[in-house]
């Protein structure tokens, strides 16, 4: 069973999807990621999908769900590195994912998370 590794980088979690996103893999990721966010008290999640070149409506919805769940757990999700073909497919499928944040690459995504963290203290104690 393939698993997608979840790496901790300071207060953020980095998820790099490098395998084919089967439905099962996506479900497992959803489970593990929510648990890790709670366990690590993560403030943000970077979802790197630069190696994903095929998406369907299920995976598209999954990405949206993961972002929504993270937000409920008070961690901002940034989807980074989406390929042009994937972006066009998602839009054509009607999944424009208006509520999630996006960035061109991991660098830009990290900068976005940091600036968002600065702006909204979210009632956390600064470490």
């Amino acid at each position, binding site marked *: 069973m393939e698993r997608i590794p979840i790496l901790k980088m300071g207060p953020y979690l980095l998820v790099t999807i490098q395998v084919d996103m089967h439905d099962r893999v996506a479900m497992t990721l959803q489970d593990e990621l929510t648990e890790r966010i709670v366990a690590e008290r993560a403030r943000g999640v970077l979802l790197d999908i630069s190696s994903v070149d095929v998406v369907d409506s299920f995976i598209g919805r999954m990405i949206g769900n993961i972002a929504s769940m993270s937000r409920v757990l008070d961690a901002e999700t940034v989807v*980074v590195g989406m390929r042009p073909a994937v972006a066009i497919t998602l839009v054509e499928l009607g999944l424009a994912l208006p509520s999630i944040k996006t960035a*061109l690459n991991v660098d830009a995504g990290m900068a976005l998370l940091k600036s968002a963290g600065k702006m909204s203290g979210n009632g956390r104690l600064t470490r």
Partner: protein
Amino acid sequence: MSQNSQMADEIRNKQDLILKHWMDYQLSALTLRRDRVKESDLRDMSRRFLDLFSEAFSASSDASSPGWKPVKEHLAEVTRTRAEQGFSPTETATFVFSLKQPLFDLAQQRAGHDSKKLAETLWDLTALLDKLGLYTTEAYQETRESVIMRQQQELMELSTPVVRLWDEVLALPLIGTLDSARTQVVMENLLQQVVETGARIAIIDITGVPTVDTLVAQHLMKTVAATRLMGADCIISGIRPQIAQTIVHLGVNLNDIVTKATLADAFMVALQRLGATVTRNAASTSG
């Protein structure tokens, strides 16, 4: 059938005479464009056609049978050349139709006083030449269509440039109508450039888009959504007053998209977001 081959032999024997008559008719016809075709070229073309015609005619008088393929190919070639030279379809069809007269003359000579035979032969010839004449029109249309297709393709490639305005700022000046096929090309070009240049802001300028209806608006919104998914922001600029009115009257919701009246305004917004400022040099303003 034997009557056919007799007629075909006769055509072959009297080819020079027929050719001479045919050339006379063509040259006297009002539709001949002497400025576009030389007499010698026309003669060569006619001779070649007559050769193929008599050969095919000896086999069958049905223009749809395979024996007529070389004739049709020759006609298509003639039509193509003429279409490119700027002939109208009438002028090209006259090339075939003017052959009727010399052939009818010949048929009349052969039939003598046998009016039934004459009527039959004339009917065969008319049906045949009409088909060939119509074929030139078809070939003409095909040639024109291929020209139009090529031009459309070229237009599509020409009219979707992605310009780099600044570090991390791209501009996409759209000119002409936006249909689905073009939106696809525009979107792909823009997203590819976003990846290559690492742009954070893309400005779509629609000054050159003549009309914006719900479909065009939807295409624009798709492009904006796809760009956003890639992690870049989109600004739409160049919205003319009439277009602003149309968009509101159509009830299109562009609230989620940043829109600016001019490309300059959009560029200023882009620079602001990047944290860059443009200042006027004091020395040049005083002068």
